[in-house]
């Protein structure tokens, strides 16, 4: 194993993944640079979401999954047997296509992770209040919601729900945030707001976003990965990929010939 480079927060080496007999990822190798947004593009069924879900090993909840290779996050191969999944998922949070707030209050949604990861008696009220305020300020919802913390999270607008789902990860102090088409359920304004939020979060977190929307990949990401049929075709700076892709398949996808 090569020494992990401090500039990269995620190193993937020869990673393959099978659902039963079907090989969904084929010898994927990549490095995700710390503190930037990387986007993952490609046609449906190319393994984007599977790759994303491999980084917090949530795939294993969806069926019969076998893997080979290495994924190193924070200098630890997360596929090792001694990795604690709750601890891994604390560091690697995930945001979904459809906002999925829990049917409890806004306040409870945000401290849900804290409650999961600490004993009841160790959580002090002041600590929780502070965590809620910090998280909501980071996602720019505090001013809108500070008087409504007791309201049900499912009653918020979709845009606010999605921001709340991002805020929910923050009290756990993750290093990496995975986003699976986080704007596909939102309207134009919602998309813009969430994109701005992602950019502002990028300084503190490594963000990996799966998107179907190539314009979005262009707008928000510094690096871009193009995938096809379970393989990484091209991984480069975003401008490079969109302006002068090296691979013929990338060119064709970006020009909209398929996918």
């Amino acid at each position: 194993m090569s020494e992990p480079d401090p500039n990269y927060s995620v190193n993937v080496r020869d990673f393959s993944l099978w659902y039963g007999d079907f090989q969904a990822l084929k010898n994927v190798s990549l490095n995700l640079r710390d503190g930037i947004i990387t986007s993952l593009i490609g046609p449906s069924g190319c393994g984007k979401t599977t790759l994303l879900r491999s980084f917090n090993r949530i795939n294993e909840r969806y069926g019969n999954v076998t893997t080979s290779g290495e994924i190193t996050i924070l200098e630890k191969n997360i596929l090792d047997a001694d990795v604690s999944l709750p601890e891994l998922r604390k560091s690697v949070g995930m945001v979904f296509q459809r906002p999925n707030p829990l049917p409890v209050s806004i306040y409870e949604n945000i401290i849900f992770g804290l409650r999961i990861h600490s004993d009841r008696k160790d959580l002090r009220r002041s600590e929780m209040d502070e965590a809620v305020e910090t998280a909501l300020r980071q996602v720019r919802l505090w001013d809108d919601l500070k008087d409504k913390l007791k309201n049900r999270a499912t009653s918020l607008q979709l845009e606010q729900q999605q921001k709340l789902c991002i805020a929910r990860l923050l009290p756990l102090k993750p290093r990496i945030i995975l986003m699976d088409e986080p704007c596909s359920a939102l309207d134009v304004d919602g998309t813009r707001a969430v994109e701005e939020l992602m950019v502002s979060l990028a300084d503190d977190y490594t963000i990996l976003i799966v998107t179907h929307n190539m314009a979005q990949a262009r707008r928000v990401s510094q690096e871009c990965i193009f995938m096809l049929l379970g393989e990484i075709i091209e991984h480069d700076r975003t401008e490079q990929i969109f302006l002068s892709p090296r691979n013929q398949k990338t060119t064709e996808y970006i020009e909209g010939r398929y996918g």
Partner: protein
Amino acid sequence: MFQETQHVKRKKRAERTAQGVFLGMTLCMVLPLIAVVGFLIYKASPVLSIDFIMDAPERGMRAGGIWPAFWGTVCLVFFSVIIAAPVGVLAAVYLHEYAPENWFTRMVNLAVFNLAGVPSIVHALFGLGAFVLFAGLGKSILAASLTLAIMTFPVIIESTKESLAAVPRSFREACWNVGATRWQTIRGVVLPNSTSGILTGIILEVCRAAGETAPIMFTGAVFFKAVQGGDVFAYGPMDQCMALSMHLHTISTQVPGVPEAIPFATAVVLLGTVLVVNATAIVLRVIIRTRKKW
């Protein structure tokens, strides 16, 4: 322009006929129900009263009330529920949330499914063999409740599994992704959001248990037991008891000279109990639904 063609007229006729047939079938279901209930209440009216429920039978069950049978049914159902509900609900949680997809799980699911279809008389014989004779409980409320529990719990498992499946997957995903264990997910999100469905399933099963005669006939119910009217401490778990369904059977077929109104009134009480319990289930569900909404 836009005039009805022959074709459209034919289609309209077919439409009306279809609607009529479906309405007719619905009425075929509802009318007998109304007729049965109406007939029962009409026939029972001479003796039906609160006293009829609260009094003990007199003159060899030819007069008086049905308290021992009513209370016996309450006891049987109560004990069977406190046995079957925890076992059924927890087993369902395991099968739905934990069990890996393999031949063992499939077998258990198949067994549960089939167990739900076993006729009650078979359960009765099993109860007689297993609880009354083998376990040495004798004919008792405990043995009868266990038999009822065995009979009801596959259905509780099935209904609980359905309620668990109705909890949106996104809630679970939200939990997994902050690193919740399965148990934390179940306790924090899955159970609170499926309580209403689970409770409804249990209560509906209670109703079925209350009406069954066969399983208790061999295992704990008796023709007659001398009990003071309104005595709620009449039965201990190891006693035999009377039960409404059995009492109805007895006074309709085994005892000569029972005034006609008494069996009818007994039937009304049995039916009324079931309706009250059902109504409770509905009210409970509505209350919990309005509090837990997604």
